[in-house]
């Protein structure tokens, strides 16, 4: 029963404290909002880039060409060996005819008259190949080296530059984000502590009387912890709301500005982004509020 009374008293007093120290409360909320907004933004960016990299990875293949005169049985052996490799997801055979058809579609689409000059000749005769899809792009190099050593293999081609750039870009954004978020989290915790310290100094006499009358630690600390948690929670809800409103609009804008990209890449849905962002922001906000206030009351209330 005492716990319930203390719980409601703490909530009421915590809210009164927040109103009393308006300026500090607003500053703390703004900092946490900025921090968690940046977190949400970075997370959206990194997760979308990872998503794009994954989808590009699925379409990027290593092309394996054979030595001239390689027999079909030898080609079948190569295919078998490739399929046994755990790093390889899929192996697809492209005949010389198929290769020529693809080439014609890609290169001579706008100049069909040039194709006619080849008549029935296939300039890509002896250019049948295997398209090898790897499970993880970072393993592409080692797979290429393995294939190059295989008998009957003339040439191995891999188009990895675009993916490599994206992976590097993603890594840089990830590192910058983590550093920024750590700095902002530290500033947020510091500001919450300051807000609580001001609250304690304003209520020093009250705390002294509480102690004299026989208030428990929980009763004395409760309002300050409520204060910290409320600041953290509000500081988390604002960026969630902002991201909720802006996410689809930004994606729509990108699609309209860079229409050509939409054929290549797709973005994560709002729902799948928020499955992570909402609990993470609330957890971080409340966590910062709780830790900041607990550390401060333990230190300044001498309990």
């Amino acid at each position, binding site marked *: 029963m005492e716990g319930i009374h203390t719980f409601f008293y703490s909530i009421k007093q915590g809210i009164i404290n927040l109103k009393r120290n308006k300026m500090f409360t607003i500053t703390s909320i703004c900092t946490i909002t900025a921090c968690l907004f940046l977190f949400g933004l970075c997370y959206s960016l990194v997760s979308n880039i990872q998503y794009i990299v994954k989808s590009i990875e699925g379409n990027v293949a290593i092309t394996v060409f054979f030595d001239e005169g390689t027999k079909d049985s030898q080609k079948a052996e190569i295919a078998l060996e490739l399929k046994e490799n755990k790093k390889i997801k899929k192996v697809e055979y492209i005949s010389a005819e198929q290769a020529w058809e693809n080439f014609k579609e890609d290169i001579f689409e706008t100049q069909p008259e040039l194709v006619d000059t080849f008549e029935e000749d296939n300039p890509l005769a002896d250019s049948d190949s295997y398209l090898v899809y790897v499970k993880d792009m970072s393993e592409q190099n080692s797979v290429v080296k393995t294939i190059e050593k295989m008998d009957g293999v003339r040439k191995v081609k891999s188009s990895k530059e675009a993916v490599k750039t994206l992976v590097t870009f993603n890594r840089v954004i990830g590192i910058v984000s983590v550093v920024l978020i750590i700095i902002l989290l530290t500033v947020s915790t510091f500001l919450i502590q300051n807000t609580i310290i001001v609250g304690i100094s304003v209520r020093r006499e009250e705390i002294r009387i509480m102690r*004299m009358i*026989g208030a428990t630690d929980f009763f004395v600390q409760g309002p300050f912890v409520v204060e910290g948690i409320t600041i953290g929670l509000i500081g988390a809800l604002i960026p969630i709301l902002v991201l909720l409103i802006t996410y689809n609009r930004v994606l729509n804008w990108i699609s309209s500005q860079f229409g050509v990209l939409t054929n290549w890449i797709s973005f994560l849905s709002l729902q799948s982004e928020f499955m992570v962002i909402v609990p993470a922001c609330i957890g971080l906000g409340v966590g910062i509020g709780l830790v900041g206030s607990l550390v401060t009351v333990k230190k300044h209330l001498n309990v």
Partner: protein
Amino acid sequence: MEEKSAKIVSLSNVSVTYPTGSKALKNFSIDIYKGEFVFVVGASGSGKSTFIKLLLREVEPSSGKVVVNGKNITNLKHKDVATHRRRIGVVFQDFRLLKDRNVFENVAFAQRVISMPHRLIGRNVSKVLALVGLEEKKKAFPKELSGGEQQRVALARAIVNQVPLLIADEPTGNLDPKTSMEIMQLLENINRQGTTVIVVTHDREIVDMMQKRVVTIKDGEMFSDVEQGQYTESLAASETRFNME
């Protein structure tokens, strides 16, 4: 007064040495019985405040044994201090009221701290405000009250939780003689209703007039303990002994 069988305060050979090295109490022993009214007198720095702090468990004894309200608090754990203090009412010279709350809320605050159910708070607070004669001023804020009235509020707050022991530290220090007498009469009323009262004071006139037990502390030691004593007697004895030394 009740039969002298139940001790409410018992200090046995208690010494208190502060981290600075100063010895506030030296082998101090005293027994105070339930229902007693005791004055504690002595010069500044004699150890009176340390005596009160010991009872409230604001300081720990360096040696000896302290029993309050039947509980040995010599080695009381931090988590049990709040429960211990709930059974002691305290008033101070500077009243220590919450300036942003009215009379009713100041007294009710003591009840909220011990998580008294809301429906009982109104009844209990009104009862003690009637006892101290401030029922009419329950909506007034401390700055609207005289010193005497503020001390009455502090008294109401100290007893609203029905404590068995009331400690008053210089309760008349900021009051004129007439108001001081009114406060002392209130303390006597509270004592008559069964609460043990310990008053630390410099007010010679009051001590002499009340004719209660007077304990004199000098240089951290028990100097005299006189039933129905007078401040002057204690002081005279103190001075005589001082001259002899």
